[in-house]
């Protein structure tokens, strides 16, 4: 029994197609197998990979668009900041110029004030000097006249009338006035 089966198996294994032959069964099965392989290739590999490639292309395009947009935005912001910077520089310059102008004005005012004050002080000082001078002269005048009277009385050792007295004093004073 087993021997029969083995022999049968051996016999079936011995059955070969001829080397160059066309067999309809093989053709049909090959067509089916090829179709299956095409489907497997398409659905397992081709489609997912194409999908991912398309998605990647889309992502890259999107990223590039976004980068472009970001660049434009950055440029706009930069321009704005540059403008602002220029404006603040101008402002700063204006403030400094203003301050300088004000300071100069103030300086001139202060100098003018100081000058007028000095002039006033000088004037007052001169006035007081003049006054003191006059007072001193008057004092000196009084003392000298007394001394002169005393000296004259001593020299003349005689009574002089009031009239003579005055004449002498006046002449002495005139003399002193000329000298001083």
């Amino acid at each position, binding site marked *: 029994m087993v021997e029969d089966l083995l022999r049968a198996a051996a016999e079936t294994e011995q059955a070969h197609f*001829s080397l160059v032959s066309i067999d309809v069964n093989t053709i049909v099965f090959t067509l089916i197998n090829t179709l299956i392989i095409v489907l497997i290739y398409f659905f397992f590999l081709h489609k997912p*990979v194409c999908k991912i*490639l398309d998605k990647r292309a889309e992502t890259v395009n999107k990223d590039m668009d976004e980068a472009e947009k970001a660049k434009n935005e950055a440029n706009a912001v930069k321009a704005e900041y540059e403008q602002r910077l220029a404006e603040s520089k101008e402002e700063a310059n204006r403030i400094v110029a203003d301050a300088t102008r004000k300071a100069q004005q103030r300086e001139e005012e202060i100098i003018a004030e100081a000058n007028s004050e000095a002039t006033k002080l000088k004037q007052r000082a001169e006035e007081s000097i003049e006054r003191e001078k006059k007072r001193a002269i008057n004092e000196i005048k009084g003392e000298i006249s007394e001394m002169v009277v005393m000296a004259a009385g001593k020299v003349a050792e005689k009574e002089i009338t009031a009239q003579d007295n005055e004449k002498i004093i006046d002449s002495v004073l005139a003399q002193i006035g000329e000298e001083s």
Partner: protein
Amino acid sequence: MTDLLKTAAEFTVEGPLESISFNLGGWRVVISESIVVQWIVMLILAVVFFILGRNLKVKATSRRQMAAEYLVTFFRGMVKDTMGVKYNKYTAYIGALFCFSILSSLMGLLGLRAPTSDLSVIAAWGIVTFVLTQRNKFKTGGVKGFFKGFIEPLPFMLPFNIIGEIANPVSQTLRHFANILAGSVIGGLVYFALGQIANGLASIGIPAILSLYFDLFSSFIQAYIFCTLTMAYVSMAECSDD
């Protein structure tokens, strides 16, 4: 040498085995060795395609994805370059056929009978080429263009045109089949001959060099040629006039 010649009669090359045979409604279905090996190839390809094609990311990081993308873009580029952008729907067939053909031929390396050394297998692919060619001709030219194509440039060219239409797929079929078969026959002969010399020790190393050409190189080049010819025939069938 005389011994070798004497024993040479022992070397025979047989066609594929009739692996399974049964009757199906009066039709005797014979599944040949080629089909069984094809199933093995299909299983391998299914697993490889599945592993390559799953879990893909937009930002590719894995070598697996790189390989998958390289493979797909390679076939896409091949179809685009040979046939043009409008034929890119043929990419799936060409890609699958290329992989199927290469791996089938390489099965010879595992000691299995390469399905591509079976004329019936390649004939099936040749029939596909023929059908695709005629279909494309019909699609681009319509009924009028389809029949007009046979009597161009002159009506008496009709027989030659018909022969030409049939000869294209037949020639590419025979080329592929015969190259792989011849490769395996030569390989078998070399093994047989070297096995007779020095008690078979000579068969170490030397066949590897021949195998490199007849199995590896030939497998790739024949698959490539078959696919390129298929693409060329299909795209050339386009009726440009009308």
